[in-house]
C-alpha cells in the first residue's frame, strides 16, 4: 500500500485492519505520518513540553500497533479510536496512573449487537459530529474542545478562562445535550 493524498477516515480504518491482520509496517508508516504531528499538537495543548509530546507520539503509535487487533471499524472511526488511545496514554504519562477501564462487553451482548453500525455509518457519524460541533454557539464549542484537548478538570478550565465553574459546567452540559439530541435525529 502506498500513501496517497486525500485519504479519508475509511482508508485509515482499513490500515488499522491491515496492521491487525498482517502486521503491515507500510500501513503503520502511513498512519504514523498522518497522526504523529496531530498527536504532538494534541499533547502540546495540555502541557508545553516537547519531549513529553514526543513520548506521547511514541507511546500512542506503539499502542496502535499493539492494540490493532481489538479495533472494530463498525464501532469507531480510525481517528476516534486513535484519540481514545492517545487520551489514555496521556493519562498514563502525565498523571502516572492508568485510567480505570470498563471490562469488554460479553460475547453476544444484545445492546452491542443491536447498535452494531457498519463502517460507512461510522464515517457518516464522524462527519455529522464535526458539522454539528461547528453549529454550536462559539462559547459552548470552545469549552467543549478544551475539555477534550486538555487533560484537565472543569475547575482548571474555569481558572484558565476566568469563567465561573458553574458556567463552564453548564456550557459543556448544553453542548453535549445538543450534540446528543441532534445526533439521534
Amino acid at each position, binding site marked *: 500500500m502506498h500513501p496517497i493524498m486525500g485519504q479519508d477516515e475509511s482508508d485509515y480504518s482499513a490500515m488499522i485492519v491491515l496492521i491487525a491482520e498482517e502486521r503491515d509496517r507500510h500501513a503503520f508508516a502511513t498512519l504514523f505520518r498522518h497522526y504523529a*504531528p496531530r498527536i504532538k499538537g494534541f499533547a502540546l495543548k495540555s502541557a508545553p513540553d516537547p519531549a513529553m509530546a514526543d513520548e506521547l507520539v511514541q507511546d500512542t503509535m506503539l499502542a496502535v500497533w499493539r492494540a490493532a487487533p481489538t479495533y472494530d471499524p463498525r464501532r469507531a472511526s480510525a481517528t476516534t479510536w486513535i484519540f481514545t488511545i492517545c487520551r489514555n496514554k496521556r493519562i498514563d504519562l502525565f498523571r502516572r496512573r492508568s485510567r480505570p477501564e470498563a471490562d469488554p462487553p460479553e460475547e453476544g451482548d444484545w445492546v452491542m449487537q443491536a447498535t452494531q453500525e457498519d463502517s460507512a455509518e461510522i464515517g457518516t457519524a464522524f462527519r455529522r459530529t464535526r458539522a454539528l460541533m461547528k453549529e454550536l454557539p462559539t462559547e459552548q464549542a470552545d469549552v467543549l474542545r478544551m475539555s477534550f484537548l486538555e487533560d484537565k478538570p472543569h475547575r482548571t478550565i474555569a481558572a484558565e478562562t476566568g469563567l465561573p465553574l458553574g458556567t463552564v459546567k453548564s456550557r459543556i452540559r448544553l453542548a453535549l445535550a445538543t450534540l446528543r439530541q441532534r445526533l439521534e435525529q
Partner: protein
Amino acid sequence: MSDQHRHPSLEILGDYAAGGLPEPVALALAVHLSSCSACRIAVQRLETIGGVVLDDVPPAALDTEAALDRALSNLGDAEPPELPSEKSDFPNALLRRVPGDLAKLPWRRVARGVAEFALDTYEAGYRAKLLRIQPGASVPRHTHRGEEYTVVLAGAFNDSDVVYEKGDFAEADPSLHHQPIASDGEVCYCLAVTNAPLKLLSPIGRLMDPLLRLRTQHQ
C-alpha cells in the same frame, strides 16, 4: 438513558470520554460501564467529539521520519494486548484496586450494620471507600458538602423510593438529604466516591460529626 436515576449524567459520561474525570470517579464509572451497554455506547458516541478534536488540532512540527524510525525499531517489543483476566464477580478496574477478597478486608464499623473500607485514591480532595451494608440496615441520614458518586457492587439499596441494584450508579450533591437502606436478603456492597465530607442530619449523627461538634462547642 443517562439522565435518569441509576445511570451517570451526560456530564460525567462526557468528562470520562474526554479523559478529564478524576480517577476515583472514573473508577466508579468504569464499574458501571462494565455492566451497562447503553452508557457504554453513549461514551463511544461522545468519544467521536475527541476524534474530531484530534483531527482538527494544528499538526505540530516534528521530524516525522526520525520519529517513525524510532517507532518501527520498537515494534518488535510491543507485546500483544493484555487478555482480560478470568471471569470474576467484580469488574477488573475494581479488582486492581481492592487488596483481595471483599469478605476478608479489615472493615471498619461506622454505624449499626454498616462498615467501610477506604481505598487508596490518587486524586487530591477525593475519597473512595467500599461500603458494606447488612440487609435492611441503613446509612445514617445525611447530606453532602460536595458530590458523591456511588455504584452498587452487589446486593441492592433503596434511596428515596428508587432501588439501586448491581451496576447502578447514583449521584448525590448538597441538595439531597437521604438515608439509603440496603434491601432485604443480601449484603449490599457499594463503591462510594466523595470530594467533601458528608454531613450527618440526625441528632445523634450531628454529635458524631466532628465539624459540627466543634461549631457547637464554640457557641
